[in-house]
């Protein structure tokens, strides 16, 4: 399948990129989600704006406390980052489930987040971590939390004239544990269900389910129960309770239980 024709722009800076955005214009980050859609002709932009040349969007730093990930950071780079492994291990656990290693060479953190597939690992892990998403336009920057950013399956609050520039993840307390679990038909396939959990020593928790709804959401009732001393099994059942389908509820609860137990270990 060959894409429908389009024009191509490769801006060298964020400012240049912003000037190119608009309707009928699609942003190309890693291409691992977009190019399949182009090849199937399910996406037919007039112009593709390739962010691959914008070095200023490719970084991982934590100089002043929170983790700051430039949107064009490749998933493989996140996976290899010693900083992330030590201090935000949930991200490393989650990213290892993203497709296959060849996909992660090109796929980006920002691209996965902006694509907002309900079965995607990074959005749910970032949601559990309380991440914030920096959207830049020529008018300035606005910063949204996960619940404001993810608004539907494959839908985010990003306007067509905005770029997701950075993902900011709060500092994690010393001794916090994390866990990630998912099920897929085969290894590397799209997840059918999953869970991300991060638990601080005082049992403050961030728990989010993957594939349980149109957007990744914090399981607030479950988090409160965990903080209140409930057992992982009970917490997990709470996290999954809104799922109507009995099997899905059981599946999500089981995966949540595993993620929570891993975080507590």
């Amino acid at each position, binding site marked *: 399948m*060959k894409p429908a024709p389009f024009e191509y722009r490769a801006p060298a800076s964020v400012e240049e990129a912003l000037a190119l955005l608009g309707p009928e214009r699609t942003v190309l980050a890693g291409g691992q989600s977009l190019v399949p859609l182009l090849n199937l002709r399910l996406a037919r932009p007039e112009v593709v704006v390739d962010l691959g040349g914008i070095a200023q969007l490719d970084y991982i730093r934590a100089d002043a406390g929170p983790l700051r990930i430039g949107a064009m950071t490749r998933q493989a780079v996140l996976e290899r980052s010693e900083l992330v492994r030590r201090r935000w291990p949930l991200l490393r656990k989650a990213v290892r489930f993203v497709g296959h290693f060849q996909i992660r060479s090109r796929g980006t953190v920002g691209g996965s987040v902006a694509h907002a597939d309900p079965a995607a690992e990074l959005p749910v892990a970032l949601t559990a971590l309380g991440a914030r998403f920096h959207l830049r336009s020529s008018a300035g920057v606005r910063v949204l939390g996960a619940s404001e950013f993810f608004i539907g399956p494959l839908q985010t609050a990003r306007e067509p004239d905005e770029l997701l520039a950075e993902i900011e993840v709060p500092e994690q307390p010393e001794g916090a544990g994390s866990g990630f679990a998912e*099920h897929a038909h085969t*290894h*590397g396939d*799209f997840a*059918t269900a999953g869970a991300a959990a991060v638990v601080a020593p005082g049992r403050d928790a961030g728990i989010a389910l993957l594939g349980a709804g149109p957007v990744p959401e914090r399981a607030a009732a479950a988090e409160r129960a965990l903080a209140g001393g409930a057992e992982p099994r009970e917490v997990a059942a709470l996290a999954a309770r809104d799922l109507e389908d009995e*099997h899905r509820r*059981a599946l999500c609860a*089981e*995966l949540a239980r595993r993620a929570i137990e891993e975080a507590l270990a």
Partner: protein
Amino acid sequence: MGTEARLTAGRYVGRPVRRREDERILRGATRYLDDIDPPDAVHVAFARSPFAHARIGGVVVPDGLEGVVAALSAADLEGRPRDLPVQGFEGGRVATEGHPVLARNEVRYAGQPVAAVLAESRALAEDAAELIEVDYEPLDPVLDAHSSDVTMTHWHRVSGDVDGVFASAAHVVRATHTLPRVAPVPMEPRGAIASYEETDDLLTVWVSAQDSHRQLAGLAAALDRPEEKIRVIVPDVGGAFGSKGPPAPETVLVAASAMATGRTVKWAEDREENMVASYQGRGMEADVELALDEDATILAVRARIRADLGGYLMPTTAIPTHTTAMLMCGVYDVQAADVEVVGRRTNKVPTGPYRGAGRPEAAYFVECTVDVAARELGMDPLELRRRNLIRHHPYRTALGWTYDSGDYARCLELAEELVQPEHHSDAERVVGTGFGMYVERAGGLFETAEAELLTGGRLLVRSGSSPHGQGHDTTFAQLAAERLGVGIEDVELRFGDSDEVPRGVGTFASRSLAMGGSAVVQAVDALKQKCEAVAGGRDMSLHEIAGAEPGLRASARFESDLVFSSGAYGAVVEIERATGRLRVLRVAAVDDAGTIVNPLLAEGQVIGGTAQGLGQCLIEQAVYDEEGNPTFASFAGYSLLTAAEMPPVTTAFVQSPSPLNPLGAKGIGEGGAIGAPGAVANAVADALGGVRVDPPFTEEKLWWALREAGS
């Protein structure tokens, strides 16, 4: 019954010779269809029906489309080429209406080709194909065999007083089983290139195919053209599994348009086309009944089989239904049988032969029912089998076929030993063990070979068989080298070019070694006799004989009845209670394919086939939605097993030589796909305490089944 082979193991035969084919593959020096880039070629893309069922009012091609050389609908073809022919089977009824090359006034499945665009590039052809306006009047689709009132195939055989036996039997066991449709998914999609030379009136077609013969015959028939005026060349082929046998309608279109335009025309199918338009496998369900007496002897089998054949009979669509029916006595000594199979039209892509081509269905239906019987009678499923196995060969079945040789009891014994049965149940998981046996038809018809002594004493063999991964270049060289007494490096094989190889039958139905290999051996034997005649008793090397009489050659045409491979598979599976997730812990694959010429390659066939059988059990299913749209147009909607899911597979070969060919060989290419599903299904049922579920055994199904089993 004895394991001596008529062809005794020697320098090469019976040895795990590594493949000569490998180096050029490993270096990336292969030439599959799309690697062939004729500089002046035009590229084809098809406009395909978006509807499962619709009338076509008209097809309009806009003018002035960029890069377009021609755009064709059925109206432009004016009745030529003809619809694809339909192959029937003996003793039953098969409708004669075939698949049109391009749809005329009706489409019967989503993805059916309606118009073709020839353009300077594939991308431009796809651009233009999107702009073709087709006036569709959608009709309600029929999406399962039950709801269909159009019968396209029918076969029914009754042997013995089946009704009487059932009426008086001590036990009657009934079960219904379904094997849903799966897609063949060779890693290389289909494709063809055609070039017409007007001065010689010669049409040359390169095609990714299982052999040149059926493509040649099919093109000659569809184009109404003498076979001598068509040359078919099969390049390297990236798998087929039954899906690249006779010519596809697209291939015929490519050939016809090359003749019409005078351009070289290339069609390289993409994955989306391959998923929706390549014929599918399985898609059968059966009501099976067994009549047993007091001591668990199976007295009779009755089966009503329904096949979901899709919108048209493609050339070989009817064949698997007949194959399933003929094998419904399985490996058991059953005196009476009543088997009927009906193939119905539905608004889906047609079905056709896919690895096993009717044998997996028969093995599945029989073996699952035998396990149901064992449970109902309160017997060990292995014991029930042992009481009923055929133990003397040749054996003529109640349905009329003769199994040439076999040692079914030994296969079963080995499978039990190798799989290490396990049964376990705790709060987290259940573990079950199951077995599935099979007998399958292989070989048959005829095959050809020519052997030629080249200058220097090297041997050139031209074979009617055609490899697409099986390693014929190595196995046939092993046979020829051994037979003539030369080094394997002194043997060259030719396959796949209709100008270069003798006319034969082709590669399908696990026939290449039994038929193609036997033809090679006979041709080499005949050549050897000629060499000996030239030497006239003198001690001459082949080099010298070739010098004395250049161009020595001999040919052979080997003909044989069907041979019957068999086997027993065992599987141990684990189901996780909390989620319903199935893991196959291990598989034992015991196959009897007669003489094994290359055990390394034979094992490769078994493991590859087993992976496909496991795929059918675990995750593969070609699902159409309520409107008849395929949900499997991409890998997002159809999954294949990866290396991460493959369990350990222990293989063993029982070698009951066939008396029907000089090698004593049968067929090993399809055993894995035939034997594995029944074993896994029976293992799952064992884990579920007897609850039976149809494949694919998804988490959801098994989770609910565990609840049912618990209640």
